[in-house]
């Protein structure tokens, strides 16, 4: 019987591969990475005074004029990283349109009239986007500077210094990590 | 016979109606399916009429869907009609004859008059001058001349005799002289003539392997588009659109491959018909298709590649002899030689030296004898001889010398035959008799080669001669000193490499090779055994035709492929006509897709349906005549046909549908 003949190798291979690819390899790889690259392997965590304040590559929410604001998140203002996701609203979605209109109004209210960078009024894919575009950061800079009583150019310089540029102009997009920017901002001596 | 003979068209129009019978139409899945859709749409139209609903659109769609089916059946009927015309003339030959059935084969005096239709295999019959031969048979006694024009169209009588390669006679042919005793070799209804009639009528037509595969593809496409159209109901339901049955029917019929579906069987029948017109009868469509696939042609040297007669081409005097003297001796030695060879020597002498010897009464002609292997003329005490080199030298008792021997060898190596010539016992020199290759044959073989077909010359000559002629004719290979056995071996070897082989033959000893070959063309003049073994019979008994048979096979496949490609490529434009039309009520913005600017949704749909129907009719001539064949390589052929039928299939309907829409506009239909 054809099927019976195949039963032993089929079952054995499934079991063997499960043990090796599902157990041995991940265990060994995890141990190796924990030893070799512990910071990344554990989530690129940033600590302040011994306490975890978040991950360098996971977005968190900031409110108020004191800090640069991250992008809108489909997860809401909590930036709850125990989950992730996008709004999944379509291009002709009326609720998306309403949300965008409200965000545009809020953005121009907070940062003055002018062009509204698209990333500032649209939700990211993960809901945990740690970055904002350079244009967005530069638009926010004067308001942040004003709230912190810093010269605008200091904050603008800071933004420019913290910018990750697109490699060769094509890989990626000029952007700023919001958490890191705000951390550096906090570290600036008050004028 | 012109393509559109009035009588054939009238008959085909009637036949096309009869062919609407769903039971027979089922053989053609696409058109059968279209018929169902047409019936459904008609039902809707009738319902609308009965219920006093607006019925104009459903009715017009239904009519055009029926016309689509009708045009397809008409195409098939046309193809059959053209074959039938020829079948009628064959049938007349078969018309009831009475046979003289011999009770005792040894006694020709006592016979029983029996209708030909009652004859069985093995019956012995007598035919006398003026009788029609009642059935296919083998001559077992007698010699007679037979007029075979009923079958071959050739009116010169041919000799038929017992034994040998000329023992087969065909039912329906007429004895012109003498008498023959025949053994019947076919039961009534299965004679050569019967098979031929059935074939040209298309009655016994079985689908060829390619046709079956193509039908599966087309049926698959039909199902796929059926799914697409039926599920559209669900998508429409969500979108708030409901589609009427005529609209869905129109969309479906336009998308399924009705064009090729409608023309497919016509193409097949027309392919057979082209072969018949060419005086070749194939026992099956499969054989015609195989002819297109052939990779190697086995061609007899004599008659196909060369004229078959050797011709004098040059004089080679021995040292000390003048060429003019040699030429004169040659001419005199050939004066009594009436063979083509002899005549060619006289012609050469006249051409070169203007020697025109007169034959006097006193001259004695010495004819060729197998014993001496010489011939010549004794005249006024002078004697002139020509003959095989070794025989002549032997008779003279001399050695020719080194230069002479070398010239003889060189002539032989070039594929020609050297004849030694003497005058009064003195060796004068040599004359070269050359096997003349037919003009243009080399180019033909080159064309074959570019199509990927190897040509193989079959000859009884020795290897040296064969090699020389092969080189001159430009064949790819040759079989020298051919015997039935080594021919068969060669075919098996080529087939072992995965190639398909075609050959022609006539003798009984060709039968095994004919049977082994993928395409075996038997000569009508050949034996019954050869005709049974082959899968085609050439009524003209012209071995050169093998090349044309291959071309007809290829043309059949090309026509099928071209129309399939055309048909499938048509779909894109039909989408642009129909989709905006059926969705525009729900989403008016989709009118942006109406790139042809068709006037109204109804007119757009109707125009597509009309185009879809008319294109079948428009392509009937192409299907019947076949796509023009060009003997070029596959790559060039593909490029050309893909451009014409692929790209043409994409573009043509845009123009066609737009024109029909404009025409409907002129009459204010659905505006």
């Amino acid at each position, binding site marked *: 019987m054809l099927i019976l003949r195949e039963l032993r190798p*089929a079952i054995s291979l499934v079991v063997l591969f499960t043990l090796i690819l599902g157990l041995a390899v991940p265990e060994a790889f995890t141990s190796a990475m924990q030893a070799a690259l512990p910071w990344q392997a554990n*989530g690129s965590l940033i600590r302040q005074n011994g306490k*975890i304040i978040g991950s360098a590559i996971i977005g968190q929410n900031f409110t108020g004029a004191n800090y640069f604001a991250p992008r809108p998140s489909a997860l809401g203002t909590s930036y709850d990283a125990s989950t992730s996701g996008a709004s999944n609203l379509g*291009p002709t979605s009326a609720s998306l349109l309403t949300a965008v209109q409200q965000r545009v109004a809020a953005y121009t209210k907070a940062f003055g009239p002018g062009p509204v960078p698209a990333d500032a009024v649209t939700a990211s894919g993960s809901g945990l986007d740690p970055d904002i575009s350079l244009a967005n950061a530069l638009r926010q800079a004067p308001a942040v500077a004003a709230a912190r009583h810093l010269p605008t150019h200091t904050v603008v310089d800071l933004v420019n210094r913290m910018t990750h540029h697109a490699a060769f102009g094509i890989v*990626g997009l000029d952007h700023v990590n919001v958490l890191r920017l705000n951390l550096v901002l906090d570290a600036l001596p008050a004028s | 016979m012109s393509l559109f003979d009035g009588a054939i068209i009238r008959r085909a129009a009637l036949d096309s109606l009869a062919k609407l019978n769903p039971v027979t139409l089922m053989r053609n899945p696409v058109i059968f399916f279209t018929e169902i859709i047409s019936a459904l749409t008609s039902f809707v139209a009738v319902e609308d009429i009965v219920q006093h609903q607006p019925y104009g659109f459903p009715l017009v769609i239904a009519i055009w869907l029926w016309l689509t089916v009708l045009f397809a059946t008409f195409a098939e009927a046309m193809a059959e009609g053209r074959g039938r015309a020829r079948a009628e003339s064959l049938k007349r030959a078969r018309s009831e004859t009475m046979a003289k059935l011999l009770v005792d084969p040894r006694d020709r005096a006592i016979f029983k008059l029996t209708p030909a239709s009652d004859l069985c295999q093995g019956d012995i019959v007598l035919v006398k001058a003026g009788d029609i031969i009642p059935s296919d048979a083998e001559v077992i006694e007698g010699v007679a001349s037979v007029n075979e024009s009923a079958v071959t169209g050739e009116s010169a009588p041919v000799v038929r005799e017992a034994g040998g390669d000329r023992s087969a006679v065909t039912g329906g042919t007429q004895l012109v002289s003498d008498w023959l005793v025949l053994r019947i070799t076919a039961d009534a209804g299965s004679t050569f003539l019967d098979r031929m009639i059935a074939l040209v009528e298309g009655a016994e037509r079985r689908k060829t392997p390619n046709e079956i595969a193509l039908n599966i593809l087309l049926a698959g496409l039909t199902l796929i588009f059926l799914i697409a159209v039926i599920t*559209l109901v669900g*998508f429409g339901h*969500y979108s708030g659109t409901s589609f009427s049955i005529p609209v869905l029917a129109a969309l479906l019929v336009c998308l399924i491959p009705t064009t090729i579906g409608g023309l497919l069987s016509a193409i097949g029948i027309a392919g057979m018909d082209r072969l018949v017109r060419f005086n070749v009868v194939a026992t099956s469509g499969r054989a015609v298709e195989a002819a297109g696939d052939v990779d190697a042609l086995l061609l007899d040297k004599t008659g196909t590649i060369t004229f078959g007669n050797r011709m004098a081409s040059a004089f080679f005097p021995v040292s000390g002899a003048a060429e003019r003297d040699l030429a004169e001796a040659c001419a005199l030695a050939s004066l009594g030689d009436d063979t083509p060879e002899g005549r060619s020597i006289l012609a050469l002498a006249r051409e070169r030296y203007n020697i025109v010897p007169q034959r006097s009464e006193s001259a004695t002609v010495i004819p060729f004898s197998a014993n001496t292997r010489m011939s010549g003329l004794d005249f006024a005490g002078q004697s002139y001889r020509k003959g095989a080199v070794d025989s002549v030298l032997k008779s003279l008792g001399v050695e020719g010398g080194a230069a002479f021997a070398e010239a003889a060898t060189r002539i032989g190596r070039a594929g020609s035959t050297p004849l030694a010539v003497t005058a009064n016992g003195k060796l004068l020199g040599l004359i070269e008799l050359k096997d003349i290759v037919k003009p243009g044959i080399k180019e033909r073989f080159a064309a074959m080669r570019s199509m990927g077909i190897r040509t193989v010359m079959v000859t009884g000559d020795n290897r040296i001669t064969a090699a020389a002629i092969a080189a001159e004719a430009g064949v790819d290979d040759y079989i020298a000193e051919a015997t039935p056995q080594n021919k068969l071996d060669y075919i098996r070897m080529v087939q072992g490499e995965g190639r398909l082989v075609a050959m022609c033959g006539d003798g009984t000893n060709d039968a095994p090779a004919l049977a082994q070959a993928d395409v075996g063309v038997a000569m009508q003049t050949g034996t019954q055994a050869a005709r049974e073994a082959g899968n085609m019979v050439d009524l003209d008994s012209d071995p050169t035709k093998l090349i044309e048979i291959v071309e007809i096979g290829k043309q059949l496949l090309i026509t099928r492929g071209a129309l399939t*490609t055309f048909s499938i490529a048509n779909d894109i434009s039909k989408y642009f006509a129909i989709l905006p039309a059926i969705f525009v009520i729900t989403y008016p913005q989709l009118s942006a897709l109406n790139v042809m600017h068709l006037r109204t949704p109804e007119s757009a749909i109707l125009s597509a349906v009309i185009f879809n129907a008319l294109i079948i009719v428009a392509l009937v001539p192409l299907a019947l005549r076949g796509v023009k064949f060009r003997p070029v390589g596959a790559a060039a052929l593909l490029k050309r046909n893909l451009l014409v039928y692929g790209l043409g299939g994409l573009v043509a309907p845009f123009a066609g549908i737009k024109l029909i829409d404009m025409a409907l506009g002129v009459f204010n239909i659905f505006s």
Partner: protein
Amino acid sequence: MLYIALVFALVLGAAFPLGRYMAAIFERRVTWLRPVELGFYRLAGVDETRSMTWQAYAVALLLLSLIHFFLLYGILRLQYYLPFNPQHIAGMSPRLAFNTAASFTTNTNWQAYLPEGQISNGAQMLGLAVHMFLSAAAGIAAAAAVMRAFTASALKSLGNFYVDLTRITLYLLLPITLVAAVLLVVAGCPQTLAPFISGHTLQGGSQTIAIGPVALQEAIKQLGTNGGGFFNANSGHPFENPNAWTNLLENWLLLVIGFALPISFGHMVKETAQGRTLMAAMAIILALGCVGAYAAEAAGNPLHTAAGVARSGGNWEGKEVRFGIPASTTFNVSATGTSTGAVDSFTDSYTPLGGLVPMFLMQLGEVSPGGVGSGFYTVIVFTLLSVFVAGLMVGRTPEYLGKKVQEKEIKLAMLGVLILTLFILAGAGFSLITASGVGSLANTGPHGLSEMLYAWTSATENNGSAFAGLSADTPLLDYGLGAAMLFGRFAFMIPVLAIAGSLAAKPKLPESAGTFPTTGPLFIGLLIGVIIILGGLQFMPADTLGPLAEHFLLHAGKAF
């Protein structure tokens, strides 16, 4: 545009040497892990000298998949009791476990579940990750079997499935996965078995961060064209895809085997031009898709532009800043041109045409370059159909690489195409009539239709990506899409293996000037045309009512 060119250069450049190496794997010429390989055979009782007919090959493949299906089903149901479950995640419902097991057995990686909340680390590692290796290896093995059909005359055997599976896993998938995983960790992908992290944000809030053994799984998820994200946000999640370079790496991983397979084929049949031709057709379709989707997304959403959003940005809803638009669209198009289904941005929020491109690439049968293995054999099916349709035009019975294409092959090929069409269109059409189906939609208007059509397309074509707003964990969609995945995989693969068996047994005819040429620009054009006409046209009516209608409505200023 430059970015697209960069991706193509890196992928195609690597595909040539990789393809040659893979041919050596299939032909058993690579042996550097021979002792390990032999260990597997000994423990599993595999006779490596045995060669299989197509029937035996198919039975072995099906049986192994079936066993593996049940194992995963068990793991998902029982994950609460299994190790590596720091979050104490409960077992899955039978319905969702069926859907998920079908999804991972078929290399689809459709995720009707929420990874962070419904899958434990143990189930990820022991269940999903192993499937990512083996379903990919099974697909490649089937492709290798199909390749062998063209290598010799009158061949009975298509190879040995167990040997192929083992060798492909050991020599191809595992090494590349490990190297890529290290690079991913360097860039920031976590690799830990610890529980979720609690943080106190800079502004004093609290944030729980989901974490796990991400890097290793991410690597095989991309390389094996699987696509099942460790997180719900898939490759949009910063832990799965920390920066633009990892994005490029992941994009490269998911394409490279697909493009290397035709090259392997060229080496196996000893006519490298044949392989390059298939590769070119795949690449052209993908390139057109990449350019089209990029153009659509870069143009932005006119409704939003009218609301005051800067025009220059493009459509940013559902996209991550660190990648930028070209990299986002190229990633998603690549993932749907293959059967990966990974996303680094959310297709549901793409512009209508930007979303149509991924959907249409799937509908074409995923041939650009398609899932590992499955893409290759689907291209072969279309190649046979192309050769058959147009091949007659050179006046010979069509043949491909010396093998005649006849009734049987056409029957099986059409059967495959028919099954795909049936599940996509009937599934989506039917779902849209039911209240349950319409209730699953997150968007209304034509976009809702696109969501449902995309789901059935993705499941049937074993892609796994989604217009993710759809609530897929319903009885209709769990069972329906589960069935679509199983049929889309196996009811296509078995006819293909049967075609391979039939072709293998045929004599290999020598090539001549009369042979239909299956290399060069003309054939590439023909193949693309046939793929679009036979593979894509049947979806045009539905696509017109979905994305196309939405496109014109969007530009007419309509919102729903």
